């Protein structure tokens, strides 16, 4: 596809520990196209953030990319290091973190933080940067942007700060945004605004978005496609509508059943028996099999099939009627 912005192939991330090698991301592949929002969903510890960090090159040692490829706009970036990688960050890949309270440097004014980012990546003058900073704040919906440019982060509310963070992530006009739980720390009333903002900005600019969240509601609201991760693996990938309405992997199914949004009208929420395994104790075969009501012998020995063109990494995908 010509407009593929990000392409991840068989990506594995490993962390060596004294009790063995842990693989928080294990053979994951997916693409994101320009203007598309790909939701990545899963429990905490499933490896969704780790994949995002691998893309932007911010894995904290000793975590490292052990295998696979990452392509951005047609160039391979997984092996880039130091200065080459830095030039990419902010300029081509923007990132939005979970907590706007801690994402902003408390000692620098937001104007400083914006112009600093732009001056790093764009060949513009100081005055131009100031002007664009105000414009960027206006664009993310900060009222009175010109006056508030010299304000410090603590003078903004949480939602406003997340707007500033988004402005910061977008200010050098990257082609990919990685939004890691961008709404989790916000009040419910603000969440929708932020999602809408993110969606609007990316559509307008044709920016690809990797939207990492554990919240199916956010996925349903914002994403075009969704990938489901479990114990470091991508277990299901497909259009949001398809995955939400007809999950094919038993884990996705369980996840849907336990989410209030997806189980509207149901008498009670389902609960998946057991818990996700610790990453150093991932079972043989399909990692989900100990908790899977449909597991068969094959599931216990062979890891699920690769998601290539198909939707799920389950040997025995659920058929539609089971899912409802």
């Amino acid at each position, binding site marked *: 596809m010509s407009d593929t912005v990000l392409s991840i192939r068989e990506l594995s991330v490993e962390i060596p520990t004294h009790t063995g090698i842990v693989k928080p991301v294990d053979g994951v592949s997916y693409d994101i196209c320009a203007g598309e929002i790909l939701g990545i969903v899963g429990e905490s*510890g499933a490896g969704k953030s780790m994949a995002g960090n691998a893309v932007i090159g911010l894995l904290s040692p000793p975590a490292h990319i052990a295998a696979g490829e990452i392509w951005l706009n047609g160039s391979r970036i997984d092996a880039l290091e130091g200065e080459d990688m830095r030039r990419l960050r902010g300029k081509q890949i923007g990132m939005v973190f979970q907590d706007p309270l801690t994402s902003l440097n408390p000692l620098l004014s937001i104007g400083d933080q914006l112009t600093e980012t732009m001056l790093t990546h764009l060949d513009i003058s100081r005055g131009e940067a100031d002007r664009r900073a105000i414009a960027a704040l206006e664009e993310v919906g900060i009222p009175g942007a010109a006056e508030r440019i010299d304000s410090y982060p603590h003078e903004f509310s949480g939602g406003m700060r997340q707007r500033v963070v988004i402005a910061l992530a977008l200010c050098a006009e990257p082609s990919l945004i990685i939004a890691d739980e961008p709404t989790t720390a916000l009040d419910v009333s603000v969440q929708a605004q932020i999602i809408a903002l993110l969606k609007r900005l990316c559509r307008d600019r044709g920016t690809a978005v990797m939207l990492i969240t554990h919240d199916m509601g956010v996925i349903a609201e914002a994403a075009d496609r969704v990938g489901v991760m479990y114990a470091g693996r991508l277990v299901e990938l497909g259009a949001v509508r398809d995955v939400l309405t007809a999950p094919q992997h038993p884990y996705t199914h369980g996840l849907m059943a336990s989410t209030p949004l997806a189980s509207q009208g149901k008498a009670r929420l389902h609960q998946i028996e057991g*818990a*996700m395994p*610790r990453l150093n104790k991932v079972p043989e075969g399909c990692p989900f099999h100990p908790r899977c009501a449909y597991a068969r012998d094959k599931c216990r020995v062979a890891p699920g099939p690769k998601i290539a063109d198909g939707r799920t990494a389950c040997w025995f995908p659920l058929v539609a009627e089971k899912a409802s």
Partner: protein
Amino acid sequence: MTDMPLKPAQQSRLRIFLDSDIFYMFKKSPVAILSTIVVAILVLSAVFAPLIAPTNPFDPASLNLMNGFTGPMTPNAFTGDSFLLGTDDQGRDVFSTILYGMRVSLFVGVAAVLFAMVLGITLGLISGYVGGWTETIIMRTADVQLTFPSILVAMLIFGVAKGFTPVEYRDQMAIWVLILAIGLSDWVQFARVVRGATLVEKRKEYVEAARLIGRTPFAIMLRHILPNVLSPVLVIATISLALAIIAEATLSFLGVGAPATQPSLGTLIRIGQGFLFSGEWWILLFPAVTLLVLALSVNLLGDWLRDALNPRLR
């Protein structure tokens, strides 16, 4: 995420320790292993000094002044006696004196730190739990104490304590006054850590619940707070121990330390520095090296503990 299922019966405490991250990190750090071994050797030889030391330097009747200033491993010109590390100005065997002196230094250091710890934890708990005026007074005192240099505090306490001690007890009191002086100048850090933890704990539901069912939450809090502050307290204690040993040496230099008849390492160094230019280098060098090695190992250990026990820095 829950822990993997445990079968407690099969998991001995030792096993848990040996499997723990901290022990793993310990095994991987040559510095930590080395300093632990050194500290262990030094502490053991101090504790068992009477068994190891060839002479008892604290027994004046055993000393022969004519043995004074004998060089290491060289026979004395008058008595023909030979000493591993030589003798000092009183004819005391330097090796034995170092062992006994280390005993004094370690005793002062450990006792001062324990005293500071108990005082700091108590005051920290009280100020965190009671709050109000009590807290203001305690923490303000801590501020003053912190601004006021410990060495002056110690000198002050030493001066006052000497005045209050009845003449009959003044000889034995030097050590206890040292402990008091160093301990009193060192409690603030402990108090701050514990107070912080107490404030956090106080807001938790179980404290409220305990209050509601009519139990005094204090005892419960203690049980919850102490494990929480264990690592920082341990780190502070280790580093304070090194500081206390050095502080004792410094106070000895200023003439308010352990008496010359029962010298600590600091007193030995004070005595020995008088012989630096006269060629009897061993009187200064060996105690100084011992102090350096002791304090350095304790410091390295404290340093390593700080990194190891602070999961955020891993």
